[in-house]
């Protein structure tokens, strides 16, 4: 995909998709907020009546909100699968705290004289609540709903990670593809949605209480009806594919599969952190992944052969600015110590230890270095320091740990890990802006994402791993003054994976087989 087009062109070209995503985004936000109101306001009222319950309930809702959004989504997958249901559930849980807390505070902070007057004039508890306390607390409650809505418009972008759609598809696609236009096409409507909702709710605050209640019920009805439209939209056909936002947008990804193989499969967008779990739990049947992923074995998956060679080689190598190499001449030989040392099967087993056995990257790195007789204890630290970056998956953490231990053992440089940078774009931007000094990158990513090589170039180069390496090395030097050091050895190319049992049963071995199977019926 080419991102040298302006935002307007992108929007006009993809407006249908954009509209769909915006609709999904609104649906997710509305559904979850409505549920949060239905549960949160009565809970708030309850704890304003039974003060003893207030601390445990507020603490519980507070804890829910501290769970990282992606982790919460991951926790919900075994229960609710993938798609809008876990996304709405997660957003609902996020919306609860502000709504409960503000309902409680709103009611608790009403002038006690006024509550006393309500009681003293002969209102029952219910009358006092409905006629006096709720109307007076309403501005505070609505402020809570506004906060929850704004939070949820933001968090709903993450729904794209679990196949629930929304504007996150463009945002995360854009981030991983280094495509600013695509990212903005998702981010700007998301920001506008937040502002719009905030504005509408602020208008709402001025309406009197009685009218408000009826409007709320009408809104709730609309939302629940729209909910019926959202939920079944994730219909299952023969096979369901889940691809990462990055894979969806890449010329050597989903687009390549469609163009070269004629693969035609219902597809949802999903984050790789939850993808393996989802396929293992049979929520998905086909996923995109990486050749050296440790979870292939762990989850009994099989990687389909790329018989038409659309995935370029992805050889990992550290990339570093020329200027940094000049400043620390001792660095290059140390980083190159690893060159050619890790082949595909070694990397897969290292990944397996991290992904499946959950061992610490530093432990895995040390064991590996010791087995290669490369390990040396850390030297005293001198003046200079090096910041190592990595993307957020285990292979990158392991490589970063290995490099950290090498630099500490062989030089006097101090090492500052800056690992866990969201995606290719974030990592590369960090490198270019001197926030990190180097990180491990893959030749195929360099070729397609940073250099935006067109399909013809990819085809021409992809025949040979060395030509791809040579091409990116030269181009990066010219364009970014960034040096590709020697490749580590393994090729972590894209892979299309299925469950082993399915593949055996359906006789699918290659991607062509899969395309034939899907087109056959």
């Amino acid at each position, binding site marked *: 995909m080419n991102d040298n087009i302006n935002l307007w062109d992108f929007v006009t070209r993809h407006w249908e998709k954009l509209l769909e995503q915006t609709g999904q985004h609104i649906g997710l936000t509305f559904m979850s907020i409505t549920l949060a109101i239905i549960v949160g306001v009565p809970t708030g009222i309850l704890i304003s009546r039974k003060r003893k319950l207030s601390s445990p309930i507020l603490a519980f809702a507070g804890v829910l909100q501290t769970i990282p959004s992606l982790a919460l989504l991951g926790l919900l997958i075994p229960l609710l699968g993938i798609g809008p249901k876990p996304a709405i559930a997660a957003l609902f849980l996020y919306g609860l705290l502000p709504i409960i807390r503000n309902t409680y505070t709103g009611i608790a902070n009403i002038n006690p*004289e006024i509550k*006393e*007057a*309500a009681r*003293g*004039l*002969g*209102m029952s508890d219910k009358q006092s609540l409905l006629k*006096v306390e709720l109307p*007076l607390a309403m501005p505070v409650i609505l402020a809570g709903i506004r906060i929850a809505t704004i939070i949820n418009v933001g968090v709903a972008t993450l729904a794209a990670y679990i196949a629930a759609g929304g504007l996150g598809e463009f945002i995360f696609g854009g981030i991983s593809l280094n495509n600013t236009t695509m990212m903005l096409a998702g981010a700007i409507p998301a920001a506008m949605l937040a502002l719009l909702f905030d504005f509408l709710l602020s208008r709402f605050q001025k309406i009197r209480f009685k009218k408000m209640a009826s409007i709320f019920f009408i809104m709730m009805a609309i939302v629940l009806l729209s909910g019926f439209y959202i939920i079944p939209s994730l219909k299952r056909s023969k096979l369901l594919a889940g691809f990462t936002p990055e894979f969806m947008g890449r010329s050597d990804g989903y687009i390549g599969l469609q163009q070269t193989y004629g693969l035609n499969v219902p597809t949802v967008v999903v984050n790789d952190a939850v993808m393996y779990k989802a396929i293992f739990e049979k929520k998905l049947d086909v996923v995109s992944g990486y050749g050296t992923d440790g979870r292939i074995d762990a989850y009994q998956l099989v990687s389909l052969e790329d018989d038409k060679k659309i995935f370029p080689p992805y050889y990992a190598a550290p990339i570093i600015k020329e200027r940094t190499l000049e400043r620390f001449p001792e660095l290059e030989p140390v980083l190159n110590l690893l060159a050619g040392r890790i082949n595909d099967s070694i990397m897969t087993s290292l990944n397996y230890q991290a992904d499946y056995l959950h061992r610490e990257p530093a432990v895995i790195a040390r064991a590996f270095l010791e087995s290669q007789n490369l390990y040396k204890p850390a030297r005293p630290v001198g003046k200079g320091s090096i910041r190592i970056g990595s993307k957020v998956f285990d292979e990158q953490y392991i490589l970063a740990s290995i490099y950290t231990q090498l630099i500490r053992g062989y030089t006097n440089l101090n090492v500052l890990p800056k690992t866990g940078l969201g995606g290719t774009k974030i990592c590369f931007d960090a490198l270019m802006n001197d926030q990190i000094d180097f990180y491990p990158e893959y030749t195929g990513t360099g070729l397609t994402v940073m250099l935006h090589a067109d399909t013809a170039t990819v085809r021409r180069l992809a025949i040979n791993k060395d030509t791809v390496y040579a091409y990116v090395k030269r181009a990066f030097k010219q364009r970014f003054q960034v040096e590709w050091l020697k490749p580590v050895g393994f090729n972590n190319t894209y892979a299309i994976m299925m469950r082993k049992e399915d593949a055996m049963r359906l006789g699918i071995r290659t991607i062509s087989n899969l395309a034939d199977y899907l087109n056959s019926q």
Partner: protein
Amino acid sequence: MVSIRQVSKSFGANAAVDNVSLDISDGEHVVLLGPSGSGKTTLLRIINGLVTPSSGTILINGQDIREQPQEELRRQIGYVLQRNSLFPHYSVEENIGVVPNLLKWNKQAIRQRVRELMKKLHLPEKYRSSTPDELSGGEAQRVNIARALASDPPLLLMDEPFSALDAITRKSIREEFMQLDEFRKKTIIMVSHDIQEAFELGDTILLLHDGKLVQKGRPSELLFSPANDFVKDFLSNDYLQLSLAVTSVADLWNYLSGEGNNAEDLSGEPVCDTTLWKAMELFRDKNEDGQFIALRHERTGEWKRVTWGNLMNAYSSLQCNNHR
């Protein structure tokens, strides 16, 4: 009308109300007076069930208040709170109409009653749709009183209703309040810490101290026959003014040497038939040229034309007599 039988209320170890018993008859205006912390507000709140007593019973018209639903009980009792107790989200009209609404009066009747009360309490018609924050302190308190009177309850409880107002507003509202027929016929129990207010408004004063009832009696009884040193000390600072206020023209009548007794002679003179304090105020308000005011005996209807000197002589004679 109201009987309080051996009522006590303690909060933790503190006894806020300690074994108080008393009877209040129909139409009596009772002021609960005492320093802060004496338990007067708690006692008031016990009467309409806002506070449940630790022991003892309250009877209203012979019925134990615990035997009826609390909300219904409270709808039968007017309640005026100190301040800031108007519902800020209601208009003046809605605020006044709260209790009739709870009693499910029809809209027309509520409207009528609100209009009537606003007129009686000198609230301009245009305030009907104003909200409480648009009113001055005095106006808000009139609305507050109107709200308590809306359903015309026979019993009215007032918790320091004027204390949040400035001195001048307080005095004028108090005077209006006393003149209203709505008030005159009601049984009123009012909490106050203002001694002069209590003397002005109360037929009966209940002086409370540390939760105990120290003395119950007419204002003049408290002043001239204090039950103990606490009562005496409590009133001592205001003694002179109070004694002028509780001494009626009728009390002085036999000591007054004045001329008159003929209605025709009195034309043009200001007339007083209430208290010595009022009579003295008439002298203050008079211009220099007249030395006389007219006094009228409220029961017999006799007239006397007196000078300042006559008045003062009569008062000292009365004092001598009282102390003798």
